[in-house]
């Protein structure tokens, strides 16, 4: 199974799904731009090895040795995630490169709507791959459940006041709902379409959940080292740790930066980053990232004992 070949088949599936808008070049280009933002360049670097839209296909192939039946679903999940990102950018209004910032809200909303409808089409097209209609309906229900939960996570993210969002418990809840769910859903989908037993489908979903949590914490650490999340005053795992475990001057500095968002911050972002390193926030987040990575690997180790060849999935955990 060549990854570049998988990418090509997936692109072909997406082209087919988007055929009804092919004549409307403007919309077609915006949909492609939204999908591209969400996808690493498949032709270069090691990132191609872990190109996430391929996850359902790789899981399916790992279990049953075929992936063709999962192609429409993989395309549908890619479109759903791209739609979610477009909406997220509209809601957060914090990304100068977003479709909303570049082309305006109406065109961005229409693009996200096209992606959502294209995704529905994708799942309906599973019948062209010989998937039983009961499995299709059950899968659509499950995928919609995941994405409804993600809307719940997004609602919490948008509506919680900083003091409510600053606990680790809330951070983990929201992250599971609005970030880790996507990898979990992708793995669930691949396993379900491989015809796996319930237990194996559940193991793959858990693998995806742990992978997604580790990836989000990695993103949190990058958000601190690159200063992005500090500038946006975003409460992430290193921050929840630091707010809970510091006191005195350091705590006041962090409180002003992340909790008192009505006050203008005067401290340089580099100082806040250093503070999060110096109080152990980054080390703590690194430990937690590794916990989730190891859980994902433990699941793969257990599957390997059952003679399931998990090597391509190991590459996702690095």
């Amino acid at each position, binding site marked *: 199974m060549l990854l570049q070949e998988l990418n090509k088949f997936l692109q072909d599936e997406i082209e087919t799904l988007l055929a009804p808008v092919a004549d409307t070049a403007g919309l077609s280009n915006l949909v492609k731009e939204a999908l591209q933002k969400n996808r*690493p360049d498949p032709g270069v670097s090691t990132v191609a090895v872990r190109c996430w839209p391929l996850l359902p296909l790789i899981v399916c192939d790992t279990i049953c040795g075929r992936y063709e039946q999962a192609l429409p679903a993989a395309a549908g999940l890619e479109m759903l995630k791209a739609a979610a990102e477009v909406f997220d950018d509209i809601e957060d209004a914090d990304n100068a490169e977003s479709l909303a910032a570049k082309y305006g809200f109406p065109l961005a909303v229409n693009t996200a709507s096209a992606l959502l409808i294209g995704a529905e089409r994708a799942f309906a097209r599973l019948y062209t791959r010989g998937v039983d209609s009961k499995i299709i309906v059950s899968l659509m229900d499950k995928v919609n459940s995941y994405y409804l939960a993600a809307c719940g996570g997004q609602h919490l993210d948008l509506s919680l006041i900083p003091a409510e969002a600053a606990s680790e418990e809330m951070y983990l809840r929201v992250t599971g709902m609005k970030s880790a769910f996507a990898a979990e859903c992708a793995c669930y989908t691949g396993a379900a379409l491989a015809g796996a037993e319930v237990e194996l489908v559940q193991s793959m979903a858990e693998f995806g959940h742990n992978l997604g949590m*580790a990836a989000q914490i*990695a993103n949190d650490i990058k958000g601190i080292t690159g200063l992005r999340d500090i500038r946006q005053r975003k409460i992430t795992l290193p921050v929840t740790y630091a707010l809970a475990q510091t006191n005195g001057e350091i705590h006041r500095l962090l409180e002003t930066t992340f909790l008192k968002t009505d006050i203008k911050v005067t401290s340089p972002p580099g100082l806040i980053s250093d503070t999060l390193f*110096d109080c152990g926030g980054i080390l*703590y987040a690194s*430990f*937690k990232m590794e*916990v989730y990575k*190891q*859980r994902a690997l433990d699941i793969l180790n257990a599957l390997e004992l059952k003679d399931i060849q998990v090597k391509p999935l190991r590459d996702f955990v690095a």
Partner: protein
Amino acid sequence: MKSPQLQEMVRKIFSDEEIKSQFITSPESVLSRYSLTDDEKKAVRITHTRLGLASSGSVQLEAAVKSLLWWD
């Protein structure tokens, strides 16, 4: 899943120079004082070996993070 004991251990490492030195040279001696889960103990050992104290500007930390950033 919250990790109160792991939080407490990290807080101690970064607020007590003696504990920090012990953790750097012999992580087990510090680990054994806390009721960490097996998952947490394994993660601490692996992270200690790969990243040390995950200092600012650490090339190893950057690599560890980058390896998981395929998702975004």
